[in-house]
């Protein structure tokens, strides 16, 4: 629970306005979605584990409702149903609070967070991925965070391809995922000892993060077609980032495997000096709209307005 009073509220409003004006400049239409919706919607959109973090309650007729734990689910359903006939691509943006239960011990803990987000629906491939990365970078630039942010990018299919080619069952796959996610070097080496070459790509956690050299190192160890295609896509995306002169603000992080079941290609996280956890995340989720009856590619991200405001407030001002 958090109050913003006077100058703080103004700062927060300014941050929101900056983001929304950047979205508008890229032709993203604002969308306002219901704060309360049927719980089923969010379970379909986010998967059971994440949706269960929502606050749930029942309607008069006994049906389960939830305070929206995310906006993307609602936008995806809207695209698949209300706007099924609209020509693609669709570009939407929003500034909206989301509500989640979280264990109190965690630093990110807040029941309510306002997301500044965008969704680009109906186009796949590199141009769309690059578009949302440029959007995120432009917002951070306009907030004068230019030299103090870092966006990490990865493609989840690199891990998925390796896990498939190692024939990992669900449990072993989750164990490998967790060890990579927390960078437990010794345990990783022990785990991967039982497996052939490809797994070794993940055996040195400190070599998973960096610039293009990370991709080259992974290429020398990974041979399965699925991962190679993902590495090629990431490589091309990196080339595009370099040609825009943005490579100082971006990092490749092959160890970002935190939401493998949600994203289907690109995934990204946003870090800013002064914030102890990521202040934004996103990626490609081509599987999402399919669960509402119309499968099509989609990519997007959210920034955490409250976290950004806090960083900027501590810094003194926007100037």
């Amino acid at each position, binding site marked *: 629970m958090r109050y913003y009073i006077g100058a703080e509220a103004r700062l927060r409003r300014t941050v929101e306005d900056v983001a929304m004006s950047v979205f508008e400049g890229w032709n993203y239409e604002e969308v306002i979605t219901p704060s309360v919706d049927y719980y089923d919607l969010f379970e379909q959109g986010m998967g059971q584990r994440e949706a269960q973090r929502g606050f749930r309650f029942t309607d008069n007729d006994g049906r389960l409702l939830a305070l929206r734990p995310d906006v993307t689910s609602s936008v995806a359903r809207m695209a698949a149903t209300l706007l099924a006939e609209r020509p693609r691509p669709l570009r939407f943006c929003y500034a909206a609070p989301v509500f989640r239960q979280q*264990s109190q*011990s*965690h*630093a*990110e803990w807040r029941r309510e967070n306002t997301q500044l987000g965008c969704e680009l629906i109906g186009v796949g491939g590199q141009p769309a991925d690059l578009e949302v990365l440029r959007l995120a970078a432009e917002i951070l630039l306009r907030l004068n965070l230019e030299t*103090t942010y*870092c966006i*990490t990018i990865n493609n989840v299919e690199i891990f998925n391809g390796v896990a498939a080619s190692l024939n990992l069952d669900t449990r072993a796959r989750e164990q490998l995922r967790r060890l990579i996610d*927390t*960078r*437990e*070097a*010794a*345990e990783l080496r022990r785990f991967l000892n039982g497996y052939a070459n490809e797994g070794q790509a993940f055996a040195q*956690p*400190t070599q998973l*993060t*960096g610039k293009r050299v990370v991709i080259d190192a992974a290429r020398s160890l990974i041979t399965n077609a699925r991962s190679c295609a993902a590495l090629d896509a990431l490589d091309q995306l990196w080339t595009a980032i370099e040609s825009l002169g943005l490579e100082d603000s971006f*990092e490749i*992080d092959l160890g970002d495997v935190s939401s493998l079941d949600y994203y289907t290609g690109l995934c990204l*996280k946003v*870090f*800013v*000096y*002064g*914030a*102890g*956890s*990521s202040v934004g995340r996103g990626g490609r989720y081509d599987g999402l709209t399919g669960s509402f009856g119309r499968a099509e590619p989609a990519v997007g991200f959210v920034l955490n307005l409250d976290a950004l405001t806090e960083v900027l407030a501590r810094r003194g001002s926007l100037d």
Partner: protein
Amino acid sequence: MITIAIAKGRMQDSALVLLASAGIHVSEAKLSSRRLALSDESGDYRFIFVKPADVPVYVEHGIADCGVVGRDVLLESEADLLLPLDLGIARCRIVVAAADPQAMTKVQGMIRVATKYSQITRAHFGARGIPVEIIQLSGSVELAPALGLADMIVDLVETGVTLRENGLTVIEEIAESTGRLVVNRASYQLKAGAVTRLVNALTDALNGSK
């Protein structure tokens, strides 16, 4: 500059020895002062000394970029941190201990367990469907069975002397615990070079000492 939170107590001395062998020295004069925050001789690192349970808190919030703390504390806190290195220091075990070796099957009704580690205890017994009443204490847990507060305890054991002197025996081992290097997720990306240098220096020091 990188800030490292170090768990006070058992961990502190062996952590400083290890850091020194990795080329990160803190002068004796500074250490003997009572200051809780001090920097190393190169000025690249700042150390803060806090209670073990607070290390994950400082690191998760990014106030400290890195931390040195026992696995027991990490299991208990469930903090979302990176765990790049097992430092192998301050080795000990988290165990279930009781006066009677057969306590697990002999206790009538709900088993009462006294511990500082309620999360670990809940997870350990919960995984096997054994209902327990957890009695949260903050120290001298070994006293609890003798005074009738609990049937057994879950606690850290290094040598086993304290357990024996209080008439307790280990009936189950839950996990082994050693000192870990933990890193904040944002620092890992934003200060990648410095964090990697620290991890590599410590890795070399560990390999050298084997």
